[in-house]
């Protein structure tokens, strides 16, 4: 058990991690002290556990502080000591005890083909489980690209009919926290807001919290200056790539991908995110971009802005095609030649009326 002082420090850290001030931290503390630690039921379906792994690597606060002090993690297959019937019983009792208040977190896509037989736990399909758990949840969060859009399991040709959570849970508000993996701080912020205020963050049209997904990766990219100046890596390992230039031309999806990756890096290691290590953004947080558009294909810029260059006072414009000048030359030459030939023939004509030959034209 830790002191209250330690706990306040932890809450301040958590608040700071998601961009809130000390006042919010104080409210976290008060909420926790009143015993309002939210119960979290974490469901895992077609997934790689990457999102969980990513969550395990948070340090502000660390995962143990999180699950022991800030939330009450009542069901999580990876982190659970219990197994089999014991685990199923824990899920049932948590649902019963916290009905209408617990947070249902979905990790992984849900297969729908053949009535969902491609993912079954304890004899029930993923569809049945998610419907059952979500029915009595206070908030539903889909974490990762799989639960948000379908992710890898839904990639063409999608043999299992993998679907995102919001497709199964029609009519319910599902907070999407996409990413492959999702940034754990975006989950943390959403969960803490719900725990403290009982509300969900403002969402964009795709169900993503605006605090994390309001701007494109491009807008705060540390390589943005290179983009504006027209300095691009053309292929991996070239001079420009080694100099850390813009990765747009090797397929960076940053300009169309809404996420805070460029300011909130991963695993609490500065620079640990795709662009930081020299790989173009893959677009995992954007429906129809990651797992859909080929990795090294470039995308259109949504709202182009000016580059850091200026047109000169005199900027050459307009086109002169050599073909056109050639054609014009031929026409003029042809007319001149034909005219001269015609003029020579003129001398053969009578100057008074006598010609009755057949007309030529």
């Amino acid at each position, binding site marked *: 058990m830790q002191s209250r002082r330690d706990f306040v420090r932890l809450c301040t850290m958590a608040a700071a991690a998601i961009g809130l001030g000390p006042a919010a931290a104080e409210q976290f503390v008060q909420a926790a002290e009143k015993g309002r630690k939210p119960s979290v039921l974490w469901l895992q379906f077609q997934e790689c556990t990457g999102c969980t792994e990513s969550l395990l690597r948070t340090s502000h606060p660390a995962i143990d502080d999180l699950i022991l002090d800030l939330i009450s993690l009542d069901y999580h297959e990876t982190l659970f000591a219990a197994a089999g019937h014991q685990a199923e019983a824990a899920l049932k009792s948590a649902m019963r005890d916290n009905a209408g208040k617990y947070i249902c977190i979905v990790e992984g896509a849900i297969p729908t083909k053949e009535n969902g037989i491609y993912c079954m736990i304890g004899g029930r399909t993923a569809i049945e489980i998610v419907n059952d758990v979500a029915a009595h949840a206070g908030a539903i969060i889909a974490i990762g690209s799989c639960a948000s859009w379908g992710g890898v399991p839904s990639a063409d040709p999608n043999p299992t009919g993998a679907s995102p959570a919001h497709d199964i849970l029609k009519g319910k508000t599902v907070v999407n926290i996409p990413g492959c993996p999702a940034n754990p701080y975006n989950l943390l912020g959403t969960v803490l807001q719900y725990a403290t205020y009982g509300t969900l963050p403002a969402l964009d049209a795709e169900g993503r919290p605006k605090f994390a997904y309001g701007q494109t990766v491009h807008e705060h990219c540390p390589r943005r200056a290179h983009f504006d100046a027209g300095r691009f890596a053309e292929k991996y390992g070239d001079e420009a790539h080694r100099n850390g230039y813009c990765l747009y031309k090797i397929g960076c999806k940053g300009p169309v991908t809404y996420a805070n990756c460029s300011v909130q890096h991963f695993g609490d290691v500065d620079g640990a995110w795709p662009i930081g290590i020299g790989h173009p953004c893959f677009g995992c947080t954007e429906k129809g971009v990651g797992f859909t558009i080929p990795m090294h294909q470039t995308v259109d810029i949504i709202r182009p802005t000016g580059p850091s260059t200026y047109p000169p006072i*005199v*900027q*050459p*414009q*307009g*086109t*002169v*095609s050599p*073909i*056109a*000048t050639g*054609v*014009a030359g031929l*026409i003029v030459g042809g007319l001149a030649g034909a*005219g*001269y030939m*015609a*003029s*020579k*023939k*003129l*001398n053969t*004509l*009578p*100057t*008074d*009326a*006598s*010609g*009755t*030959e*057949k*007309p*030529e*034209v």
Partner: protein
Amino acid sequence: MSRSETLEPVGGPLWTRPMQVLTALFLAGIAVTLYRFVMGIGAIANLNDGYAWGAWKPISVIVFTSMASGGYATALLLYVFNRRKYAAVSRTAILTSALGYTTGVIVLGIDIGRPWNFWRIVNPGWWNFHSVLLEVAVCISTYIIFLWLEMAHPLLEGAGQSGQWSFRELARRLTPALDSAYPFIVAMAIVLPTMHQSSLGSLFLLAGVRVHPFWQTPLVPLLFLFSCYVMGYAFVVLTSLLSSLAWRRPLEMEALTSLSRVMSSIVAAFVLVRLGDLAWRGQLTRLSVDGWSLLFYAELLLLAVPAVLSFGLDRHASPQKLFLLAASTLLGGSLYRLDTSLVAFMPGAQWRYFPSVLEMLVTIGFAALAVMGYIAIVKRFPILPGVRHAGAHA
């Protein structure tokens, strides 16, 4: 006189090989035109914000209508100065004018971006009386009506000889009315081109320093007026000679040689005004061997050399000489007009322009339409002097 006083249709089949080639060119022009109306001017033309007029207006309107001023220039000699010998070529002249202006205005309709607003020109309440282009547009539109009224005579004559009773009846009823109105039509058909042919030059006054000083002068309306006479006469000479060649007809040497002499006196006036103007504006001393000067020399030589040679022409002159002199004059006049409106227009150092092939196709397509119209009308209506049959002259 060896010339026949009566005018007759040439006759013969219409659907000949040259007509087929011209039709193909015309259809190509139409195809490009349709594409332009769907996809926009930028899709076919190299026109840009610097050379906003490109080559369509300078060639199809400013140069072609000047060539088509034969009707106007000849009417001046025939009806005002009462030189009846030019009657032999007057209808050829009016027909080329009517066709040249009509096709020129069609190209203008393709060139302008929003032709569907052009109807507003019928309301003088909407006019900007300071706009030179407005004057040109109103005069040209009206002049086309008067040109076809002038053409009504030969067309009705043709109808009068038609096999159809209704055409003959129409001709019989309309001809007297047309006869009595004819002087007033002719007078109008002289005033209108006097106005707009000079104003075509005035258009470029507004471009101010954007036209090279060799060509930018307050006298540009006068120079444009002179150049349209010169080119009009030259084009009548060429058309008449080529018609004779095409249909193996006698050459109108008497009318054509004197027309060439008239032409050369106006060229003399043009050259004097041009040089005097340059001297007065202090530009003569700026002539050297740069591109602009060479263009100016080319214009001057193409006009002045045939003018000097034409003074010595008599009725025994060779038709080839007549042809080459007229061709050179026409080229010189065209060059002057093209220089003023396109080549010497300097929108700024950054701008480049040369017409695209598709752009040229539009110009060529409608020029082909004019030639087709000429061939067809000459074959079916009394435009050219009749051929006197062998023995009739003996």
